[in-house]
C-alpha cells in the first residue's frame, strides 16, 4: 500500500467516524438534564441493598460480573508482563547500587510510606461508603511500597517485597472473588448475586452484603498486581544486564 492510498484510507475512515459521531451527538440528551433513567434505577437498587456509594453497588453488585472480567484483564496483562520481562539466558543480574539521597527527601519518603499505606487501606475499606474502592486503594497502597525505592535504594525495597508472596496473593485474591461468586451459586441463586450476607446498617463499614468482600478481594488483587508489574520493570531497568560479547562470532 503506498502513501497516497494510506492517506485516502485514513481520510475516508476519519470522515465516516466524524459523521457518525456528529449524528450521535445530535441525538444525545441535553447536557446537565434531569432525566436519568439508568441512574434512577441504579440508585434505587443500591439503596435497597444498603450501599451508600452507588458506584460501588454498580461495580460489585449490579455489574459484579463485568468487574470479574476487568480483574481477569489486569491479571492476564500482569501475567503477560511477567513472562515477557523475565531474565533470558544471555542476561545476568548486577547488584544495584544505593543512591545518595538527601536527608529531607529520605525522611519524607520513610514518613509518608506508612501514611500512604494507611490511606490505601482506608480507600479500600470505605469503598461502599465514599468515593474510591478496591482499585483506587490498591494502587495507592502498592505505590506506597515503592517510596522505599525512591527514598532509599532498590535493595531496601527488595528486602520488604518477597515477590513470590505477592504473586501468590494476586492469584489468591482473584480466586477469592470467584469463590464469593460461586458461594451464591451454592446458596441456590445466580453467580455473584448479592443475597448471601445480611445488608447491615446503611452507611456503616459493615453494609452492602458481599460488596465489601468483593471490594477487598479486588483491592488485594490490584495491589499485588501493581507490585509484581513494577517489580518486573524495576528488575529490567536496574538489575538485569545483557551479557558482554552478545552478537559477536565466537571461535569454536
Amino acid at each position, binding site marked *: 500500500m503506498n502513501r497516497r492510498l494510506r492517506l485516502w484510507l485514513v481520510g475516508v475512515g476519519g470522515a465516516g467516524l466524524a459523521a457518525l459521531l456528529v449524528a450521535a451527538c445530535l441525538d444525545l440528551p441535553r447536557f446537565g438534564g434531569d432525566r436519568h433513567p439508568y441512574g434512577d434505577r441504579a440508585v434505587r437498587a443500591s439503596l435497597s441493598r444498603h450501599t451508600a456509594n452507588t458506584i460501588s453497588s454498580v461495580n460489585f453488585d449490579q455489574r459484579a460480573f463485568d468487574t470479574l472480567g476487568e480483574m481477569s484483564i489486569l491479571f492476564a496483562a500482569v501475567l503477560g508482563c511477567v513472562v515477557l520481562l523475565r531474565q533470558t539466558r544471555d542476561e545476568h543480574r548486577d547488584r544495584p547500587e544505593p543512591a545518595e539521597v538527601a536527608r529531607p527527601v529520605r525522611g519524607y519518603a520513610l514518613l509518608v510510606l506508612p501514611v500512604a499505606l494507611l490511606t490505601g487501606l482506608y480507600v479500600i475499606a470505605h469503598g461502599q461508603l465514599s468515593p*474510591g474502592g478496591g482499585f483506587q486503594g490498591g494502587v495507592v497502597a502498592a505505590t506506597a511500597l515503592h517510596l522505599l525505592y525512591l527514598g532509599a535504594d532498590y535493595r531496601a525495597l527488595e528486602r520488604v517485597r518477597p515477590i513470590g508472596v505477592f504473586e501468590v496473593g494476586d492469584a489468591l485474591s482473584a480466586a477469592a472473588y470467584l469463590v464469593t461468586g460461586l458461594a451464591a451459586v451454592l446458596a441456590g441463586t445466580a453467580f455473584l448475586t448479592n443475597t448471601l450476607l445480611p445488608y447491615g446498617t446503611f452507611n456503616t463499614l459493615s453494609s452492602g452484603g458481599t460488596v465489601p468482600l468483593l471490594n477487598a478481594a479486588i483491592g488485594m488483587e490490584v495491589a499485588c498486581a501493581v507490585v509484581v508489574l513494577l517489580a518486573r520493570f524495576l528488575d529490567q531497568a536496574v538489575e538485569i544486564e545483557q551479557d558482554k560479547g552478545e*552478537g559477536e562470532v565466537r571461535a569454536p
Partner: protein
Amino acid sequence: MTDAVIVVALLLVAASATVAVATRDPERQALVLSVLGVVLAVLFTVLQAPDVGLSQLAVGSAVTPLLLLLTVRKVRRRPRRKEPPP
C-alpha cells in the same frame, strides 16, 4: 458558575492532551502526561465522578511516570548490537 468550572477543566484537558501528543521526547512527554492526569482528575470531579477521578489520580500521578521512565532508562542503557554487514 458550575458550568464555568467545567469549561475551564475541559479546556485544560484539551490543551494538555494536545501538548502530550505534540511532545516527542519520552521524558518530557511523561511530565506532560502526569499533568494531563491531574487535569483529567479535576475534570472527572467537576463532572461529579470522583470515583473515576480517584482512579485516574492513583494510576496517573506516580505509577505511569515510573513505568515510562524505567522503560526509557532500560532502552537507553541497552548496548547496541553490532549489525552484521549486509
